């Protein structure tokens, strides 16, 4: 009977490490370069998602706006907050692009068409990106240490992730055909 104690102890330690420690250890995280508030931009400036995250004329998705877009309004400081000062000093004045970490950036072997989902599939931004558009602070970017994938697509653990399973799950739920059509995404 005594012989089982080390076995149980080992199992218990592995279980707790595997369930409690591993999910954190596997990710590394970093803050976004600029303290950006979607809420302020949406509420005060009345900006809509597509004002900054626009489709180009050719239908491709421009993704995160470049500094040019920001300086359209922030050519000089708009307010006195530390975040605004940091943004102006670090990026606007030296004309340096902020190195944003894109939560939803697809790996190189995947082709994801935003316009097909948004215009054709009528999927709302919030369906994938949650309440990101109304948050006050950008969450830390979490990246899988091995695969290099972003943990999820709106910066909060437990939300839809970046793996193929996540895509397939959603397509299955929507009863969409072609869920196994490899070349749709892996062109």
């Amino acid at each position, binding site marked *: 009977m005594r012989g089982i104690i080390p076995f149980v102890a*080992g199992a218990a330690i592995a279980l707790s490490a595997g369930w409690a420690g591993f*999910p954190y250890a596997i990710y590394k995280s970093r803050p976004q370069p600029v303290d950006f508030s979607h809420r302020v931009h949406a509420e005060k400036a009345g900006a809509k998602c597509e004002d900054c995250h626009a489709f180009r004329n050719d239908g*491709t998705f421009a993704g995160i706006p470049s500094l040019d877009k920001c300086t359209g309004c922030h050519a000089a400081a708009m307010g006195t907050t530390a975040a605004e000062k940091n943004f102006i000093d670090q990026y606007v004045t030296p004309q340096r692009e902020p190195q944003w970490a894109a939560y939803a950036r697809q790996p190189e*072997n995947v082709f994801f068409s935003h316009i097909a989902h948004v215009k054709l599939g009528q999927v709302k931004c919030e369906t994938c990106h949650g309440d990101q558009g109304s948050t006050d602070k950008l969450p830390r970017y979490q990246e899988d240490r091995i695969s*290099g*994938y972003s943990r999820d697509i709106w910066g909060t653990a437990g939300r839809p992730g970046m793996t193929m399973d996540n895509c397939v799950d959603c397509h299955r739920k929507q009863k969409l055909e072609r869920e196994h059509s490899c070349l749709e995404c892996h062109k």
Partner: protein
Amino acid sequence: MTTTRRGLLQFLGGSAVGALFTPAPWRLITDTALWSENWPGIPRPARGEIRAKFTNCSLCTAGCAVRARSVGDQPVALAGVAGGLCPFGLTAHHLPYHPARLKQGPVKEAAAAVADAIAQCGPSEHVAVLDLRPGRTASWTYRRAMASVHNGLYLAPPEPTVAVNLRNAKTVLSLGAPLLDGWGTPADVFAARDGFRLIQAEPIESRTAALADQWIVWDRPPGLSADATSLSALAQAIAGEMTVSEAATITGLPADQIQSLVKELKDNGPALVVDSEMSPAVVALNVRLGSWGRTIGPRQEAPVPESWKKAAPRTDLAAVPDRSIRVLLIDESTPGEYLPWESIEKKLAANAVVGAFAPWTQGYGRHAQYVLPTAVYPEALDDIPPAIDSVAAAFRIAAPLVAPPAGMVSPVEFIAGAAGLPASDALRERADAIHKAGRGTLVTYADGKSIPVKDVKPEDFWKSLNAGARWVDGALGAAVAAAGVASGLGGADPLVRSRPPGRLSAPAQQADEGVGSGPGGPPHYPLTIVTESRAAFLSSPLLSQIYQESNLRLAPNRIALHPTDAASSGIADGAHAFLETRDGKREVQVTVDSSVRPGVVLVVGQTDTASSGAKVVRI
């Protein structure tokens, strides 16, 4: 409590079992699989805005109009503008990444050595530029450069003096020209194809022969393009100056075949007779058929600045005295003609300095002391000489789609600098001269518009040319635009109706220099030489990876023999041998191919041997 080995093993066993019930091992497997799909070795597709850029393909003189799909600054797919591209053109955006790409070269050393050699050049020695693709603006710079140095020579293969208009032709007799295989502008040739009946006369079943309406197996005379006597006989048969049976004896074709050929050329006009290089005898035959000004006419050239006209003339390499070239600079930066090294080498002085400008480590660089790396299409800025089926003068720029890597050398700047020509932007000067002439039309690819040049400002004209456009002379510009700006310049308009060259207005009566020209032929040269396609780019080092290394087509250093001829010379497939003609011999590698006619030795590219008999001697 003491720790025993047994206890430790039990602990590890428990840990292992416990771990299996956590996400960790499964996640590690998944993550490793994901990592393996994206590890550093895999190509990274370009990201960025998708744009269309326009240019002209400079891989051959067809100069097809190209629409490049670019992601950011990187072209990722090429397509024709209202017309197709050939497989080479379609995949040309991969050329900059060719494994044999030359990335650096001894530029300073080469410049110093060339300057020294020019300074020490003896009175009977020459400084020469070998331009493998004449007819470009760069060619004019070379000619001007050679005019400004003592004993300068501009060496280049001959350019065709005529242009053909397939759209106007009802019957086309092709004497071994690879008409449907890259001879003209593919999009235009195929657009016109339904309008003419094609009779292909050649000894082998080439792709053009296979696609022709009629294939005449005409293995005598073998050097079809050079056989003036046979063509003259055909011309006289057409004019009724010679009986069909006499013509049959001279040409070696059956009398009934001559009869039907003559009837077809006369009755189903306008007719056009072509051979690979539009030899004088073929032009004369066309004149005889009344085709001059309808399906064939003089080749037109875009205007050049007046000050350029004091330029060195083209000199044939064969005309240069042996051992007289002290400095030779070879421009093989764009695919062009190939001259066997043996024919160049014998012209070099013992202490000659040879420099080659090339994007690849192959080619003449193997023989030159200095090999300088150049940009390659689609990185290089160059213009494109008119294609054989360009019925109007045209000016097309191959504008770069990507920036060339650092360290590339411009052969034009190097040669102009070595000759002491003041630095200038020759392409821009030529564009300005064209604009100043005020003729013709600017056809822009992005919107398919054609605008008379006189309505365009010089600056806009230059900008448009660099953004994908072509200048086409005269009213033909509008026809080209109407035809969809495709690729070539063949319009429905008649050709320029100038008088045919005097020496061509009568049937050619030149003595037959052909090989094997008579039935008897020189007995010690039992084989007759047939040159394969003159589509020079196919024999360029550029495409060696695809065609030559896989031996799909004859490389310039290869010949092909029928198995019986190979066997009678004791030569096996792949063996090295000497190809001997009355002009000399050179070493070749032999491909034994049963599709070659017995008695024929098939060579590629050069036609200087095509007029002679040959023998192949095992080494």
